[in-house]
């Protein structure tokens, strides 16, 4: 199992309870979408899976290890892609890719070159001169070049232009077809998940439930709105 969560509880110390009894399973090669209203806890779930925050109760395992543990061995098979990650402004795209590649033994330099071209990125450009979308594209290049078994994506599609979004989803479809890795993708754009993910985790009022992709429209009362 890539991800296994059993009755996970997360409470912000001195704050509100974000989840109660969250259970979830992600198998190898499976794509999971995470949906929820603003402030429901999508990014917080990503933080729990990354090991940035500890769970308050239950059990959470990613690649067979507790994310908060200090001695994880399988972390080089996971890549975290987030709109929240900031890279120093003076770093060039090539600097960032080189720094990241050091940590991933399966890093594919050839693929990196192809993806840089595919996403039309300038490797000599500094992060300070890039738009938010271009910064995310640099992270996407790193994510797929690392050849991980699991990619955690947090709100990355919203900042991409239509052409780059199409390229990104085409790439995701190729990866899914080859069953190269599992993907967990948190997003606010429900349509992004159509035809991409195998199931959806919907977080609402401390509860998280797993749904089929075709149930997305019911989750947000989109039919009534239409």
């Amino acid at each position, binding site marked *: 199992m890539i991800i296994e969560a059993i009755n996970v509880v997360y409470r*912000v*110390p*001195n*704050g509100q309870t974000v989840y109660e009894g969250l259970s979830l399973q992600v198998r190898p090669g499976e794509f999971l979408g995470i949906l929820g209203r603003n402030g429901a806890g999508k990014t917080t779930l990503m*933080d729990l899976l*990354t*090991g*940035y*925050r*500890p769970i308050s109760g239950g059990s959470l395992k990613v690649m067979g290890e507790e994310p*908060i543990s*200090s*001695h*994880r061995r399988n*972390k*080089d*098979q*996971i*890549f*975290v892609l*987030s709109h*929240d*990650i*900031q*890279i*120093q402004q*003076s*770093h060039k795209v090539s*600097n960032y890719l080189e*720094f*990241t590649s*050091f*940590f*991933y033994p399966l890093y594919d330099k050839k693929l990196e070159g192809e993806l840089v071209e595919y996403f039309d990125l300038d490797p000599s450009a500094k992060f300070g001169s890039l738009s938010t979308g271009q910064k995310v594209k640099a992270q996407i290049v790193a994510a797929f070049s690392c050849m991980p078994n699991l990619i955690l994506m947090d709100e990355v599609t919203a900042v991409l232009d239509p052409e780059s979004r199409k390229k990104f989803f085409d790439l995701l479809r190729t990866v899914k077809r080859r069953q190269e890795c599992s993907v967990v993708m948190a997003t606010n754009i429900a349509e992004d998940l159509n035809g991409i993910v195998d199931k959806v985790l919907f977080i609402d009022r401390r509860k998280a439930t797993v749904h089929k992709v075709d149930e997305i429209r019911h989750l947000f009362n989109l039919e009534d709105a239409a």
Partner: protein
Amino acid sequence: MKTYLHFLKSNLLYNKVELSFSYGLTGLVFCFYFYLREVGSEAMTGMNFVSIAFYALLYAFFSNKKKFNLKYLVSLPMPKAQMLMVKTCSDIVFFAPFICLGFAGGILSKLEVHPLALFVLLVQAAILASLVLFDSDVEQPRVENTKASFVNRLVFIRNKLDFLFSLGIVGGIAAVVFISKIDEVAAGLILVTIGFLGIGLKYYQSLRLLKDESLSYFIVKRDMLKMGLKASLIAAPVVFMHLNSDKLNSPFGSNKVFESILKNDLGTLEKYVETGELPVSKGYTPLLVAGRVGNVEAFNLIYSKAESSIDDVVSGKKFFGYGVAHLSALSNNLSMMERVLSIRPDALDMKTSQNKTPLMVAASNCKAEMVDYLLHKGANPNIQTAKGETALILAAKRSCIASTALLLEYNANPLVKDKKGKMALDYFGENSKLKYLFKRKMPKEHFEAKRALASEEKL
């Protein structure tokens, strides 16, 4: 090690502009020092270096921020413990100017710590500063995302108290080490060991903070108790020192006989003298105490009725070997000195085991009136201590201008060198305002030879 070198390399390569700026400034400071090294004393230059090092530390604090945010670092495939270690140790490149300037400052100020220990201590300080920075990187995003409430804001007070507590412990230990005047190698070893313990403790705390989110919040039950305990531990020594300031400030301890001497309570003193109950505390006899505080009446009472010897010397740690004449010089009470000399005229040049005379004691403590009196009485100004220091050198070392002027007036020899090969003027600095006084007493050839040497060096 490989990961550490990777971080170190990335810090050096990807922060070229910032580092060039700070390293360049440090280089300029050193260039200025070598260009202007004749100006002022070394101790003053040392203090200037220490001040600049403080600014370098501040610069490192502000420039060493937001290279990669914590989320990125946590997501990297390496254990948190290793990430914390390599990140904080590789950030040392930002603190290099602080280490260099602090080291130069420490050496020039003649700190009583071994140079190697001083260097290690500065590196330790840089690593500690880096760990403190890391903690703020962990805490800031957590605290920013919490609901603004009174309880959550208490974290700020708790952190400040923690910082004060740590600073108090470090300062206390360093003070004890310096006050106890142990050998500089031993002092260095103790401080470096404590430094490593401090880093270990801070590292453990930072790691806990990284794993335990609740530590970034104020948990009333847990933190009130801890804060109370720490506040008490900070307050207790302060209150104790305040309540016992008299006893603590007294170099000879406290008992009823000594108190009666200090308060000039001759009635009480007489009772003790008659019963013969005269205590010795911290190596001081009552007669020595009377001499130290300059109480002539108490001195006469003890000397006439008790079996106290004028040859008593301090056997305690502070002022070891000082006789009543040395202590009278320290008291700066001329009548006291007059009385001692009336009993023992040869006490004028009485020497301790280190060859220190009452004149040297007065000169090195800037007691100009006493220096004048002793010189007038015929004290020899050219006696040297075991370290080769004369009264003039001791006065110059402490920048006692009036005493220096008086000693020169009474023909103290300005050409005598101590065992470090330095004369009194060397301790004042070449451009000292007192140079004229020295010039009057020193042969012309000395200055001419020095000037010739300086111009040769320039060529």
